[in-house]
């Protein structure tokens, strides 16, 4: 009997607790984030965890995976071109982003001035950003072609060279050729971002600098660059992550060749996993690159948070 009363009492207090608006709201709130939770779990945590697991196995397509410990990591580290692949990735990202930022800044400074057909030229300069990578890769592959390519035909007809230059087949030219395309395709993003940044700098600052006798370079150095600092940092960080992950353009233009002269880590992953069917070894390469990207993302996020709070 006593026991029954306790049950009733507990049941009542439970119902009372449940009836409070705050609790119901909290439960509903949790219920609403459940889909997002499973979405993140299914599409981010699970694949990432699975990839980490695979990197410790000898998984081959169609065969069961066997645990091999750090063997894949050692194999990748001992691969004769590992250093070159890392260097290629770094060169592509650092030189590519630096040039994109430079060209983008030039574009923004030019477009910030008033002149005839400004809107048209702005649209024109933005065009490369909108061209799909696949199309861009094929167009540039043709431009660089040693047999019928525009560049070689022009150089030969102008008598500037005796034999075609193998832009994509010569180890000395291939990476600069790819970087050129990466810059061509990516600079409008910087340009538009910097243009927006420029337009946010109060004109009074320029007027004050002019009154103080600052010349055009001093105005650029002391007003424009500090005004664009945040935009530059964010675009550079974002682009470093994107450019390091470039796959499509390199795949379409050189597929990592000649030999392994333009092999970058995304392409090595593709070659190992998709071409060679070595899933375990393929998973190892991006896992090894993960800390670098995680570091960049942490720096970027912290910087943006600090800005918001500041």
């Amino acid at each position, binding site marked *: 009997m006593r026991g029954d009363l306790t049950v009733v009492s507990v049941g009542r207090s439970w119902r009372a607790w449940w009836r409070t*608006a*705050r609790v*119901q*709201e909290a439960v*509903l*709130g949790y*219920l*609403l984030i459940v*889909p997002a939770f499973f979405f993140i779990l299914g599409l981010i945590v699970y694949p990432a965890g699975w990839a980490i697991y695979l990197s410790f196995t*000898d998984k*081959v*397509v*169609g*065969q069961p995976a066997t645990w091999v410990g750090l063997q894949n990591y050692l194999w990748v580290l001992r691969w*004769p071109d590992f250093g070159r692949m890392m260097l290629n990735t770094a060169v592509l990202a650092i030189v590519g982003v630096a040039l994109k930022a430079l060209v983008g800044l030039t574009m923004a400074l030019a477009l910030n001035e008033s002149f005839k057909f400004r809107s048209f030229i702005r649209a024109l300069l933005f065009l490369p950003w909108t061209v799909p990578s696949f199309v861009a890769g094929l167009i540039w592959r043709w431009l660089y*072609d*040693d*047999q*019928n390519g525009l560049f070689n035909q022009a150089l*030969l007809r102008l008598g500037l060279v*005796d*034999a*075609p*230059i*193998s*832009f*994509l*087949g*010569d*180890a000395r030219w*291939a990476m600069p050729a790819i970087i050129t395309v990466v810059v061509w395709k990516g600079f409008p993003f910087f340009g538009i971002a910097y243009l927006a940044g420029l337009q946010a700098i109060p004109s009074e600052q320029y007027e004050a600098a002019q009154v103080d006798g600052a010349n055009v370079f001093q105005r650029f150095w002391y007003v424009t660059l500090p005004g664009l600092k945040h935009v530059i940092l964010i675009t550079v960080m974002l682009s470093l992550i994107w450019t390091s992950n470039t796959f499509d353009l390199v795949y379409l233009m*050189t*597929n990592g*060749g*000649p*030999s*392994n*002269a333009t092999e970058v880590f995304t392409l090595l992953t593709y070659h190992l996993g*998709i*071409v*060679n*069917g070595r899933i375990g070894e393929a998973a190892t390469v991006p896992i090894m690159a993960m800390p670098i990207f995680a570091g960049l993302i942490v720096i970027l996020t912290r910087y943006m948070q600090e800005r918001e709070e500041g």
Partner: protein
Amino acid sequence: MNGQRSVSRRRFLRGVALTAGLVAAAGLVPACETLRLGQKEKLVIWTDATFAPAADDFQTQAIEEWARKKGVEVENVRETGENVQKKMQAAIESRQFPDISQASGGRFTLFYPAKVFLDVSDLYQEFAKQWGGFYKPGEKFFTKEGKQWGLPYSIDANLILYWRDILEEGGVKEFPKTWAEFYDVAKRLQKPPDLYGVGFQIAKVGDAENTFSIMMWDFGASLVGPDSKTVTVKSPEMAEFLEFVKKTWDMGVYPPGVTGWDNASNNTALQDRKVIFIHNPASPLVWFRNNKPELLPKIGVAGVPAGPKAQLNYAYVRDGFVLFNTGNDKRLELSKDLMRYLYSPEVYRKWVSLTFPAPAVMGMEDMDIWKNPQRRGFLEAAKTGVLDGYPGEPTPAYAELSTRYPVMTMITRVIVDKWPIPQAIDEVEKIARDIYSKHYK
């Protein structure tokens, strides 16, 4: 006031939940519809896009016509062989198979260990009886443990295609008999930068791997021994072969861009008369026939020259079909029926007349295309050519090694990276041993 705001928020959240529920329910309706529709049989077929679009289109039409006759829904996806291979890889891992897929010899051998292909010995015997047998290369590729796991449809071979008029104008009356003579002729007749002698890719692409594998075998070198299990990369013959290739590079007979060429670049170079010789299947002949028929008689076709130890041609299954076990007997029967239709004389003969490789079956040698000496050579080479894995058999280990382009890895190391020959050999020997040790423990 607070209570009111709280209730209002709750209502809002309930509204959101209700809307989300409705959206989810709305999504389920078409899903249920799909499941219901799924009861109608739909056959999924993956086919390769080739360098003979007319043959591809004809095959697609034939499949659609068969589907109409049978009242079956067909999803025929045609993509490059490379993409079909990637899809097959994903299908094997996810166990979500098409009903039928086209499979080249290499693709079949690579994925055979996954045990996902159906035993089609019954169909194989049926078609062999119908056509008077299959040529040996097709049989060898698809026969494992005494059973057939695939149906060969075409056998291809790579031969030397060249501008005959250039050789004639240069006073070359007889096609060079040895590789050394071949390169000497190329050097003598080329007029760079407009016309180079040899259009072989020096890059990790399939055509180049085929070309230089044959040259390697002609020099007496090989990647594996006759037992198909022993790695034999490191040998004096291999060093001699690589030395020869390096010498040909130093002769300046290749266009400078060959180190960056893809599988189509050699075709284009021949078609544009930028090179004298290429080593390729007959696809450029089809291109000339369709685009510049007046130039077709100027194209010569010859077997590969001899090396110091041998003179071989290379044959492989370009088109073949594998069936998958989808667990649906009705669809399996339909798949077999479609195969019978594709192997019927009216479809198969027409397809062969439009494409460039030789058929996999005997019994079509009476066709007019084989009277043309340009095409006849490809038929002969397809019948007699050596296969992947030579001097051994095509094995999964060799198929896996081939995905690393071992011959072209050595060559590009020597030519592009300027590695010493022994170092290039050591690297590939190590790769081969690593792969073979996993297959033959």
